[in-house]
């Protein structure tokens, strides 16, 4: 296992403003360590399974949580989630949907595919900040991930 590439958090976000705000929120809460950013679904999958640009790096480098947007270029968030949960290597990585969509359809589909949490990005930045802070607190600090299948 390549410890250099081992990250605590994979952030999948295509929108640069949202990305920046999210990173800013994480940083403000001091959760900025070992974050990897993927800008679309394909890149996220490459990183997770050590394919494409990440070939040879091995799979499953995320130790704590994947923050996943739903609407992504190339491969969307639900597809990424599905593939992760189908693959034994990535199956046990917690996935949190962080998305603008409050469509019930998306929520239901996500939970069906095995998402661990679903958070709607608030427009109000203060609410957004507190949401990111809380999820960071939980998934990065409190939650004890399974290590059995690594």
């Amino acid at each position, binding site marked *: 296992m390549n410890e250099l590439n081992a990250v605590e958090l994979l952030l999948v976000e295509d929108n640069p*403003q*949202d990305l920046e705000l999210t990173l800013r929120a994480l940083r403000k809460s001091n959760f900025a360590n070992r974050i990897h950013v993927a800008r679309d679904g394909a890149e996220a999958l490459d990183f997770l399974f050590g394919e494409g640009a990440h070939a040879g790096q091995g799979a499953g480098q995320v130790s704590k949580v994947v923050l996943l947007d739903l609407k992504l270029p190339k491969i969307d968030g639900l597809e990424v989630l599905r593939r992760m949960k189908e693959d034994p290597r990535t199956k046990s990585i917690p996935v949190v949907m962080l*998305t603008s*969509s409050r469509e019930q359809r998306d929520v239901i589909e996500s939970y069906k595919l095995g998402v661990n949490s679903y958070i709607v990005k608030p*427009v*109000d930045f203060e609410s957004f900040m507190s949401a990111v802070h809380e999820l960071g607190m939980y998934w990065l600090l409190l939650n004890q991930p399974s290590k059995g299948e690594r």
Partner: protein
Amino acid sequence: MLLGWWGDIGSLRTILPGLASMKFNTALCFVLAGLALSFQQPSGASSVAGVGGWRRASLVGCGAIIAAMGLVNLAEHAFSWDLRIDQLFFRVAGTEALVAFPGRMSPATAFNFFLGGTALCLLGVRRGGRVIPWLALTVGLVAFLAVIGYLYGVHSLYAIQPFSSMAAHTAVLFLLVAAGLYLLCPDQTLLEMLLSGRPAGVLARHLLPTSLIMPVVFGWLRLKGQEAGWYDLSFGVALLTLSSVTIFLVLVVGCMRMIERADIERRKAEQINRQFAAIVASTDDTIISKTLDGVITSWNFGAEKMFGYSASEAVGHRIPLLIPEDRRDEEPMIIEKIRRGERVSHYETVRQRKDGSLVDVSVTISPIRNSAGKVVGASKIAREITDRKMAEGKLKASLKEIGDLKAALDEHAIVAITNPQGRITYVNDKFCAISKYGREELLGQDHRIINSSHHSKAFIRDLWSTITRGRVWHGEIKNKAKDGSFYWVDTTIVPFLDDTGKPRQYVAIRADITERKRAEETVRELNAELEQRVAERTAQLADANRELEAFSYSVSHDLRAPLRSVDGFSQAVMEDFGSQLPEEGQRYLRIIRLGAQKMGALVDDLLAFSRLGRQALSKHPVDMNRLVRATLEELGSPWPDRLVELRLNDLPPGRADPVLLKQVWTNLLSNALKYTRNRSPAVVEIGHKTEKGAMVYYVRDNGAGFDMRYADKLFGVFQRLHRMEDYEGTGVGLAIVQRVIHRHGGRVWAEAAPEQGAAFYFTIENQS
């Protein structure tokens, strides 16, 4: 004889010389009697019933002359007168004149002439019917005495006085006259009895010759035997007595046997009679006999039952008793027929009962004849036919009814009758009209003549198998008319079975449903078209929905992101560079952020609103009380320093989508709380009422209220009746309420006045 006198020829005056001769007057009287008698018919109806008066006149005339002659002669003899009537026509000359009055008839002859003439007179005037036979008998006996006298050679028997004896041929002629007289008597009962086949007649016929001839013969033999000296008087008397006894014994035995035989026969006949009588008595048929005058002579039990008169009441009365007034003229006609010996058979008429009610009868009347074949009465056998008449009446009525029904049926339906072979035996006018065939073209054909080939073989097979099993078939058939056009008929075929259960005929009743079929076809086409259109519309709608979904998806996702940027980076500026910005700049940034947040709220509400339209309803029974309490709990207490009075009435349950209905309560209750912000205490009442049979829920407050003039804008999207500074809000809440309620088939409305509070009402079911 007259010639003999005129020509003085002795041999013609007397038969045997030495014996008395017939006198001229005697002969004349015989001629007159012969003439009078020969004018008459021997016996019977015609002489009695109005023959010519001259016949009667001849009887009276001749009779009077003869009687007068007899009387005059008797008077001459009795008073020794000599009226010289003996010489009236002829003078007696010669040896004959030796006697005192040679031309005078003997007293016996005169006596006979007197009696005979009287009888003739009586006959002529039709009187003394009873006396005439006795007169005739007396004449006969006197003559018979004379005959016996001649036979026995006893002078005194034919000659009362010497030289005035009855001639032998006179005696014989008297016998004939007596017989003739008797035959002319109106009362022929004795003769009839004698000639009849009845035992009395037979017996008399057997006894008469013996009793007439044998005494005479025996008397003669005895007389002659004594005269011949074979025996003396006493022996002769004994012999006569013996022979008489013997004859009488023989006769008595013969009579006994004959009567015995007759009695046996009579008893047999009686037995038969009794049987017949019993039959007559016991039969229900009425059997009456009557005379030709219409007098009832017998009356059986059936008659009693039919007419209500007992036998004792009826017998002896006249038949018209039984005939109603208006039918009295029937009886003479019937009697006339009977009199002619004809019979009246099964004559149907009406008779009257004792109680005056009428009875329909069928009568057969036959003549009753006596043994001589003469019609003496009538037997009448009557049978009550009231029941039959009633049955006939009913039959007539039901035939009429059937006729009416048939007429009505013909008016309404197409009717055809088919025999078991499928040949048409009857069609009505409507059948001809719709099929455009003439009746003669259809009769004898089978239904293939109107076959349209529209129906499958299985269909036709099913039809035939149904009706040949005796079951009614009903269905719709397409037929082809003569001109090739098609028509539809709603058809009912009713099989009628014979005694063995095989179809006797099929009656098909049809109704023209061509128009209906055409209409159905049109409807089908329209429906198909409609379905096509609906499918198209649905597809379009589905497309639109998909587009809308895609739109709202992107709105929800993409529209919010820039807003977040605006807000987030405004905040970032405040945080990172807030110290470098003047107060005014910071205020602008706050406005920017408020705008972005407001925009975010609008987008969220809008998305929620649009989702409502697409979300499927899932109705369940809803406990309204629990739903309202849960909503209030969720709303929490956004009024920490406020005095709020909640009046929560018990609510009846309803049937609705609980998630959506909760949204309604949330919006209404949050509005109520919001617009009572400036009230203390704020009063919010939740309750229900029944209006026009529908359950109405309401939320009433004592808040700001609104002007009812703008009530129509209340439920529009983004419509607000209050300023943003006074009461925040997006103007979507009531639009959502209305949409949910409408999707439930309910109604929502409000009542309010500015600063007087507002009340919102809704129902969740169609008002029915």
